[in-house]
């Protein structure tokens, strides 16, 4: 890289990370001040772990994200297989457009639209409040589905079309053929889809905000409620923990890649050695 490029990149990284660094530093602040660092303390972390509501919100978020990710991945993968086999051009176009809607629409509209429907249907059945864990789960599955489909579909398109046919030729039922021949091929897409669905669900605030009932709080909603009133650095402590969890996850996945590289290098050496032996 040229020098100017390096400087520019460094500036951008400072822009991206300075705010996060400030949160991290002030989460260890002794006092409540937001601009003066008066001394190191774990005070706000203790506060955080005493906050039952936040801890419950963490649990809620995880339960919701895992359920939404699993269901949307299963349904989305099946849908991708179906869409990939669609030969009717018009139908295919319609499918693609509908799938795109939740991705193009602003979250606020997706949230409002689902909320309106839930409220309306709830009222039909005479329920006072129709928003609960169920409605939220439906909402999360809905906005995760397109991302799963978008990850799986290209893998299906790249796949050799005769793979499932070969499996069936060798005596597999269509379902077994899918499991034995197709699924392994598209697995990378399925996994990426699952991870994306999980993180999208974890991170979502806007849609959750409109579709959650009073009783059920996810972490982003909890953060929203915390920042509504005067804020204590407890929030910083929470942000710091989230940041380091993410960092660890990313580092671990990179380390894993590094392992791959090592193994590959070893294999190459083996091959080279065997070639030399031959000549």
């Amino acid at each position, binding site marked *: 890289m040229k020098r100017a490029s390096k400087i*520019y990149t460094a500036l951008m990284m400072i822009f991206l990370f300075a705010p996060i660094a*400030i949160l991290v530093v002030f989460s260890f602040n002794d006092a409540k001040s937001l601009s003066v660092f008066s001394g190191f303390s774990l005070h706000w972390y203790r506060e955080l772990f005493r906050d039952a509501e936040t801890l419950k919100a963490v649990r809620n978020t995880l339960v919701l994200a895992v359920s939404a990710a699993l269901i949307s991945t299963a349904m989305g993968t099946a849908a991708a297989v179906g869409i990939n086999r669609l030969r009717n051009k018009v139908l295919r176009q319609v499918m693609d457009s509908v799938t795109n809607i939740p991705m193009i*629409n602003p979250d606020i509209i997706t949230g409002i639209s689902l909320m309106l429907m839930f409220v309306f249907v709830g009222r039909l059945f005479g329920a006072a409040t129709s928003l609960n864990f169920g409605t939220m789960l439906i909402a999360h599955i809905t906005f995760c589905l397109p991302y799963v489909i978008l990850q799986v579909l290209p893998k299906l398109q790249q796949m050799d079309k005769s793979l499932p046919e070969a499996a069936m030729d060798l005596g597999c039922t269509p379902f077994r053929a899918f499991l034995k021949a197709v699924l392994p091929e598209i697995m990378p897409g399925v996994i990426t889809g699952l991870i994306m669905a999980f993180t999208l669900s974890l991170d979502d605030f806007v849609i959750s905000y409109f579709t959650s009932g009073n009783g059920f709080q996810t972490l982003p909603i909890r953060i929203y409620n915390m920042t509504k009133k005067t804020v204590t650095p407890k929030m910083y402590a929470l942000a710091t923990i989230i940041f380091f969890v993410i960092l660890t996850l990313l580092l671990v996945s990179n380390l894993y890649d590094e392992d791959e590289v090592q193994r590959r290098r070893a294999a190459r050496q083996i091959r080279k050695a065997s070639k030399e032996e031959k000549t």
Partner: protein
Amino acid sequence: MNKKTSSLVQRLTLTPYSVWAVLFIVVPLVFVAYYAFTDSSFAFTTDNITRFFTATSVVDDGETVREVHTYLVIFMRSLKLAVISTVICLLMGYPLAYIMARAPEKTQKILLTLIMIPMWMNFLIRTYAWMTILQDKGILNGFLTALHLRPVHVIGTESAVIIGMVYDYFPYMVLPIYSVMAKLDVRLLEAASDLGCPGPSVLRRVIWPLSIPGVLSGVTMVLVPSISTFYISQKLGNGKFFLIGDAIEGQYVANNLHFAAAIAFILMVILLVCMALMQKLANRKLIVA
């Protein structure tokens, strides 16, 4: 495979999703329209829509007292701030994406990870971090005072809202542009150079036109959330700069679902028109360039 099993497979795989998509994607949008065009007893009315275009309120900015169209002003403000933020994101992000795509592979991977880390943090937290920085007695002013400079008042201004939007959505601009540029065939750049183009000319005549799909999706990914946001303006604008998202949220909180639906409906229609126009513009540009 015979036709019967084939259609069976199709039905088994496609049906659950189709039903789901109709129930939870299409029908809710119908409900938006339904609520937008009905009153609280679900009788047809266009009042909600008219209200958006005609409602007025009195503004007293200390010098003059004026009457303005409440929601039109809000909408124009949202549009203005969103467009400015998008342009800033593009100006800042395009060079970064370009540098990344030309960097050695290992550097690319590291930079990509770095850009994605803030994305994984919730945008509420990200926005909040800027509140800490920009407050009158916040870190920025603490820093300026330490340097014996005059403190600045940023929080509660449009600039603060723009900073928040740019920061929150910056990665969404960089990533799509980067992914298009990284896939750009190096031989095309060599060919341009071979045919007499110096560096800047290669950028203008080859790289830029070929990166337009990435730019377009980047622009969409920044414009759409920043025009509809309601948290950033509340926190960084001190609630002084009501945006269209705030209007929807406000009506929702006040349980004015029909009017909330009307605003959402109008926003949706306008965004659809915008996107169609952008796509058309892009297509024409691709052919002319």
